[in-house]
């Protein structure tokens, strides 16, 4: 018998059993669709988080205060502050460092006469604009002069500007931050991303000296005005390790830390931070993948169920076919083509469906959290290969057993 004949027999049999064929396909469609849509959402979330991180570049090293001898996250969060603006200047003089942006950070109320909102205040120097890539769209960024004179000036993130002034031009207007008067000198370009659940556009920038004196005065143990973290931009990310060592050496000397004592600061490269973040988003994708896997499994069991339930009818059919002269391989070929066709058509519909779902999700307005579901080839290949495997195995295995029966046993089966 020719392959073409096997093919037509298989197709004719599928068309003749429309209900069974469509139920079997439904299992594959749901399985493949679920895997593709859920995995793509996971990948999308991962990608959107990573992209906000990568905007800052991998050639940035962060130096933060740390309580000596404590190694958990608490050491960073609740530590005594140990860094100063002089530390920043000293690090900036290192040959492989292009610039240093000292940053103090806090939440503040910010208000005009009519409106008020909460913003993340980033207190820094003009370097912040470059290191964090936050150019001013209107007006100007804070200047060296502002820092030196502890000027009460503020640059607004685009969302804060919109919240407070709507369509009005905020530049030159007065705002109150923690009840103190500040003059708006500029508005930042919109970034559109988000960081740790907060929009990257709901920040405000003030000179770090102003922050230290007027907003949140805090001192180091030695009584100097404190800085929470230093963002150090390195000439090239290949020098990250080298510069990290130089900073360690420099700060140990400046903070007079003895050789046998722990440091009161910690160095985190952007690569390390990225790695940490990838771990978190990786777990997210794994969880979604597990849910998708369960759908695929349930779909697969559905396929097996229908295939096995129909085996009584099919065994009789096999008996009839063998009685009129079908060989074992003719039977196997027919069932193989049937299962493969169901898997391929069902898988195809599943891909299109899953793709459509992830497209819809990408275009639903989720407010602050943009989510771009990304369908990657590996997801598609995974979904297809699992469903094809289940389809073939559950379709062909019973057929293989039935095909090796004596024709008369197959006819009397069930």
């Amino acid at each position: 018998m020719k392959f073409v004949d096997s093919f037509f027999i298989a197709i004719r049999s599928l068309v003749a059993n429309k209900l069974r064929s469509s139920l079997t396909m439904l299992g594959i469609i749901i399985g493949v669709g679920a895997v593709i849509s859920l995995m793509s959402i996971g990948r999308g979330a991962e990608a959107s988080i990573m992209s906000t991180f990568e905007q800052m570049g991998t050639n940035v090293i962060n130096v933060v205060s740390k309580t000596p001898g404590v190694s958990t996250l608490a050491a960073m969060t609740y530590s005594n502050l140990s860094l100063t603006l002089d530390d920043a200047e000293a690090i900036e003089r290192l040959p492989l460092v292009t610039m240093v942006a000292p940053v103090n950070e806090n939440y503040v109320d910010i208000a005009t006469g009519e409106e008020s909102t909460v913003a993340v205040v980033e207190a820094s120097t003009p370097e912040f604009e470059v290191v964090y890539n936050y150019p001013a769209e209107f007006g100007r960024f804070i200047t060296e002069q502002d820092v030196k004179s502890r000027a009460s000036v503020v640059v607004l993130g685009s969302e804060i500007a919109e919240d407070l002034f709507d369509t009005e031009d905020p530049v030159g207007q007065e705002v109150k931050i923690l009840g103190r008067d500040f003059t708006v000198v500029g508005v930042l370009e919109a970034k559109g991303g988000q960081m740790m659940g907060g929009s990257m556009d709901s920040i405000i920038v003030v000179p770090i000296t102003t922050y230290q004196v007027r907003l949140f005065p805090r001192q180091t143990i030695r009584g100097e005005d404190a800085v929470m973290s230093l963002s150090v931009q390195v000439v090239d990310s290949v020098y990250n390790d080298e510069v990290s060592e130089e900073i360690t050496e420099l700060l140990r000397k400046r903070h007079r830390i003895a050789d046998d004592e722990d440091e009161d600061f910690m160095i985190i490269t952007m690569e390390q931070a990225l790695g940490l973040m990838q771990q978190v988003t990786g777990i997210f994708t794994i969880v979604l993948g597990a849910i998708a896997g369960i759908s695929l499994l349930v779909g697969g069991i559905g396929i097996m169920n229908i295939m096995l339930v129909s085996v009584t009818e099919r065994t009789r059919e096999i008996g009839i076919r063998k009685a009129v002269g079908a060989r074992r391989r003719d039977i196997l070929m027919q069932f193989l083509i049937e299962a493969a066709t169901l898997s391929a058509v069902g898988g195809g519909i599943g891909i299109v469906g899953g793709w459509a779902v992830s497209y819809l999700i990408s275009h639903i307005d989720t407010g602050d959290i943009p989510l771009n579901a990304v369908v990657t080839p590996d997801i598609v290949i995974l979904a297809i290969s699992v469903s094809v495997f289940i389809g073939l195995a559950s379709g062909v295995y019973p057929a293989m057993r039935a095909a090796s029966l004596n024709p008369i046993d197959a006819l009397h089966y069930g």
Partner: protein
Amino acid sequence: MIELENITKVYRMGKVEVPALRGVSLSIREGDLVAIIGASGSGKSTLMNIIGCLDKPTSGRYILEGVDVGQLNDNQLARLRNKKVGFVFQDYNLLPRATALSNVELPLVYGGGRNKRKQAMEALERVGLGRRANHKPTELSGGEQQRVAIARALVNNPQIILADEPTGNLDSVATAEIVSIFTQLNRDGITLVVITHEVDIAGQAQRTIHMLDGRITRGDCEEKVI
């Protein structure tokens, strides 16, 4: 053309062995119309299945047209079922979702060859069902379904047609039709072996073989000729 020598068949039901045939020897010549009769459980269906190569004997020799069937592999047996023997079952065994024409065409699909549709149509016309070609089995009466099954059995022009109680489920009118088709086929030179309770077919037969408890009790006179 059919020669059976001391054929036995034992079914295994769990640990119990149930003998269905206890040494059957039989010879059937070309062009014969042979009726097999016997009580249910006498082994006549088992004998038919072995003659039709649907089942294998536990022991003994079966020679069909000079070929020792016991020596054939599965593929050769499939070819034999396809080309040499047509089988008609009591419960028709048609593919329920295929049309009469597709059912008749089935042996041609597995046997190869050209003009499958045309040949299948000719076979259907031979049993007087040309006009019902595109009906499914569920749309046909029992007699018509059995005629479709006969058309399927003869579509490959086999020398032998085996029928296992072909009229067992049919009323007297349909039975008469089937009997007349069979006698016509026999007149055309086809060897026919029929298991039957019907006096009509038995009456037409040149030989009647009686079976009881897995043995031939009467009508096996030819055995001595071998």
